[in-house]
Structures are given as C-alpha cells and as structure tokens.
C-alpha cells in the first residue's frame, strides 16, 4: 500500500549536531500515527518538517508518492491542517477564526457558513460563534482550534500535543470528542504527544523518538508491550527495568534480580544476563512474607491519582509499585513494612543484553 506521506532521509541540524535524523517515516491513509518521546526528542520539529512548515537541512517528503517540491509547498499545506499545543487564535470572532482557512483558500459564501457551524457543533462550541476568540477559556479555545482544522476537511491532520496545556476534566472532554470525530471521519492523523495514554487510546501505530532518532516503530500495542530497549520501555511505562541472570528453579525459568526471582515465560539460556522490565501496576503486594517472589522493605508511600505509589527495596534494587487506592485501603502498608512482591511471568518483558 502506498503511503499518503513519506519522509525520507530527513536531517535537521541545530548547530553542528543533528537534532533530527530520520531514515524513513510512512503515514498511511486513515491511520492515526503517534510520535511519542520525552521532552526535547525532536517531536515537534519532526511535525513541522512533515507539515512543510519548516524545511529540513536534508531529506525529502513524498505526498501520494510524488516528491514534494518547493513550488508545491503551498498547495500541499492547503490539503492538510495543523493544530498546535496552544490554540493560537486571532483577535477576531470565533466564527471568523474557524472560517480563516477557508478564506485563505479564497472560499466565501453560504457553504463556508454551513461548514463552520457544522464543525463548531461537532466540538460543542457553536454557541460561542459570535464571541471574541481571545475571551474564551483554554478548553473552549482548543475546541475552536480543532474546529478550525476540521472545517478544512484535511487529507492529513497534524496534532502537536493538543491537550497538554489543559486541566484534566477539560482534557478528557475534548479528548472524547476528538476520538469520536476521528472515528466518524476516518481522518489521517499524525499525533505528537508525550502522553502515552493519549497515544494508546488514539493511535494505530506509534513511533518512539529519542534524541532525534527513531528507537521503535510499530503497531501501538506492540510498542507498548514489547519495547526494544530500556529507554523505550521507560517511556511506555515499564518503570522497573533491572538486570539479572537467568536461573532455573523448580517452578521454571526466572531471572535473579538481586535475590528476587522474577519469573519469565520465554525460553532463555540459563546463566544469560538480561534486563527484565515490569510496569509498576503489574506488581502485586503480598502482605504475608514468603508468599511472593521477593521480600522487601517499603521505603516510601504516597498517593498518585487513583493509585498509591510505593517504592520497595529488595536487595540492592528499588522496585516501583502502583496499587489501586481501593486495594491499598483494604490493607494499608506503611513505610518500613516488610512485604513480598509478586510478579506474573506474562507481565515481564525481557530485553536481552
């Protein structure tokens, strides 16, 4: 299948160091491709290059298989739309802001009005049409920014962390509406985010970018379940990545991590050094010592959203654990308590070193 957009051999330099070095990225019709990565990874620069807002120092874009030449840039930009982290609305009415892209394409008249109101309604801000855009709240402004992009019916929609400046309830509301609209319209989307939950909920495929280079690309579940290295693992939420040696026990293979036996489901050579990565929410706590895989001491306990986070020392290693608050409330543990950590083999991801 031919990609709608291909970027090849892209390099962007800030100074002498390449800030972006991308051999190839393909974006296919009707897919949502998430570009994830920590701050400073080059995600936004990559989005600007792919949206032809910034020219790379090297490399090419191919749109529908044809090289995107400089003289075609404006025509390309008129077939896409971009929503940035900040809504960046103009000092004008909401209606005029949403209609702006159509005006820029020389489109006026009744068709514009019906399209603008349709998309204002889709994002639940039609009642604000006559208000000045600068008088809107952050959430309202971002809804208007999304309507302003969708009104163009773009072939590719570029979203650069569109929810990051919003408080949680506002964020959830807009996220839900965007997800519905994307499902209904089958819009091709390139989403830049550092929020893995957003990426997992919206994307079909994901790219993990670290220091301007692609570390992993694949279906979103594969990236989340089978990260290729420790940095990707940490980014996708596997906060516990520890080294150990494969040993054989009566119960099967496990990895000895500082005296704690972490079971593994894969066949591995006994004695081999590996890294085991486990999500903090996949570790269960046994209050009765001796029932789990490793005895440890609770160093720290603090609430985190609907969870309670614990740091537990087992041997020389510190394991990060997230317990549902309800479970913790039923049998709370305090700093200094002795607990056993219990990890199921299917929750352990092994990286061979």
């Amino acid at each position, binding site marked *: 299948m031919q990609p709608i957009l291909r970027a090849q051999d892209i390099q962007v330099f800030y100074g002498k160091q390449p800030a972006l070095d991308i051999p190839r990225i393909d974006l296919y019709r009707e897919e949502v491709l998430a570009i994830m990565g920590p701050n400073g990874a080059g995600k936004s620069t990559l989005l*600007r290059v792919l*949206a*032809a*807002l*910034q020219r790379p120092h090297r490399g090419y874009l191919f749109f529908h298989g044809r090289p995107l030449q400089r003289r075609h840039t*404006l025509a390309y*930009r*008129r077939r*896409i*739309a*971009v929503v*940035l982290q*900040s809504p*960046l609305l*103009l*000092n*004008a*009415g909401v209606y005029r802001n949403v209609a*702006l*892209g159509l005006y*820029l*394409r020389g489109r006026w008249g009744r068709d514009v009005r019906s399209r603008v109101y349709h998309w204002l309604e889709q994002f639940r801000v039609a009642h604000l049409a006559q208000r*000045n855009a*600068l*008088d809107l709240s952050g959430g309202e402004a971002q809804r208007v920014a999304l309507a*302003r*992009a969708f009104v*163009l019916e773009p072939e590719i929609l*570029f979203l650069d962390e569109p929810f990051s400046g919003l408080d949680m309830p506002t964020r959830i509301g807009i996220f839900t509406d965007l997800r519905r609209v994307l499902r209904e319209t089958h819009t091709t989307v390139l989403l830049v985010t550092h929020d893995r939950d957003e990426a997992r909920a919206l994307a079909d495929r994901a790219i993990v970018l670290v220091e301007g280079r692609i570390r992993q690309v694949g279906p979103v579940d594969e990236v989340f379940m089978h990260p290729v290295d420790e940095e990707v693992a940490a980014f996708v939420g596997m906060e516990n990545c520890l080294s150990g040696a494969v040993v054989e026990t009566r119960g099967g293979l496990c990895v000895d991590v500082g005296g704690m036996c972490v079971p593994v489901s894969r066949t591995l050579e006994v004695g081999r050094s590996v890294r085991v990565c486990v999500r903090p929410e996949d570790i269960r706590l046994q209050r009765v010592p001796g029932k789990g895989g490793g005895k440890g001491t609770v160093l720290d306990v603090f609430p985190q959203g609907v969870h309670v986070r614990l740091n537990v020392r087992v041997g020389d290693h510190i394991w990060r654990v997230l317990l549902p608050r309800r479970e913790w409330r039923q049998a709370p543990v305090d700093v200094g308590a002795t607990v056993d950590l219990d990890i199921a083999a299917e929750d352990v991801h092994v990286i061979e070193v």
Partner: protein
Amino acid sequence: METIVLGVREAWRLLLHGDPYVLEITALTLRVSGTATVIALLLGIPVGVFLAFVPFPGRRVLVAAVNTGMGLPPVVVGLVVALLLWRSGPLGRLHLIYTPTAMIIAQALLAWPIVTGLTMAALQQLDPRLQWQLLGLGASRLQVILLLLWETRLLLLAAIIAAFGAVISEVGASMMVGGNIAHHTRVLTTATVLETSKGNFALAMALSTILLALAYLVTYALTTLQQRARRL
C-alpha cells in the same frame, strides 16, 4: 497668563472668522504632515516586517540604527535634506529646496524610523508559533504577513499616532528645508516661531492652540479606531 487667555481667544476668533492666512497654513500643515506620515508608513512597515522576520548578518546594527532614528533630532534631518537638495547639492537640479515637497521628504525621513521600529517591535511581541499556525492553515507567505500585521493593528495604529505626532510638531527640519516662505512653505510650527520672534505672542499662542487642537483631533480619530479594534 493673560497672554495664554488672549491667545486662546484669538485662536477661536481666527478659526470662527475663517481667517484665510490661518486656514492656508493649517491646510498646508495637514497636507505636509499627512503625506509625510503616509510615505513613512509605506516605507516603514515593509522594512519593519523585514527586520522582524529575516535574519541576516548585521541585522542588530541596523535595528540599533532604527531605534536611534526614532529619536532623531529634526534639525539634523533638516540639515542633511537641505544639503542634498541645495542648488549645488547632489539633488539640486530637482529644485526642491524651499518647497512643500522638501518638507514632506524631511518629515517622512523623521517618521520612517518611528514606523519601522514600532512595526518591528509589534511583530516581535507576537507568539512566534503563530506564523507556523497560519502556514499550517494554508496561508501563503504574503497572507501570513498581512494577518500578522492585522493582528498587531493596535500597535500599528499607535505607530501612526506617534509618527504623525512627531512630524506635525517638529519645526527645525521644516524651517531649514522649507524656509518658512509666506503662502508657500509656512506651516503652523514655523509660523509660531516667526510670530514669537516678532513679539506677536497672542497670534503665536493662537497658532499653537490650533496646532495642538489639530494634533489632538487627528490623534483622537486614530485612538477611536484603535480602541474599536481592541475587541473585534
């Protein structure tokens, strides 16, 4: 104090009776300063846009020169323009010295850096990502510039007010390149200087009052426009 009261009263009398001498120099003042301001806008805004967005070697030197130009002494501008337009000067064969055109040139040169400096500052205070956003909505480079200028319209109107205020109130340059010739190049500021030197304080005061009223009325009109634009 009595002179001031007499002057204001004289100003009213001259205006109400439609004194041809006063009306003539008022009209010339408006024509010269208005034209100079328009020329300064036509030159100053593109240069301001260029300095705001285009990086080039020596840009900082040029920006500093523009900022210095915002406080340029009118007599210096008058001297330079006079030397250029003087009969034996490089532009002498144009025969512009002691004409309203020479005054327009001098005043436009005074207002140009003000418009350029304030346009540049206005554009630079915008969120730099706004350019990307507009490009991402399908704007051409020219459309981006026009939209950014529209977005800074409050500050651009302030630039027009500052430029017009500077040129309508200056006397040095107009005197040097215009010569204060009756019925030809005499404007409100040069007429005020002349009447003061002759000891006609009441008439000088009257001319100053008219100048002040004129500056106020034009500025008031621009301010009204500016405040209307505040929330469209």
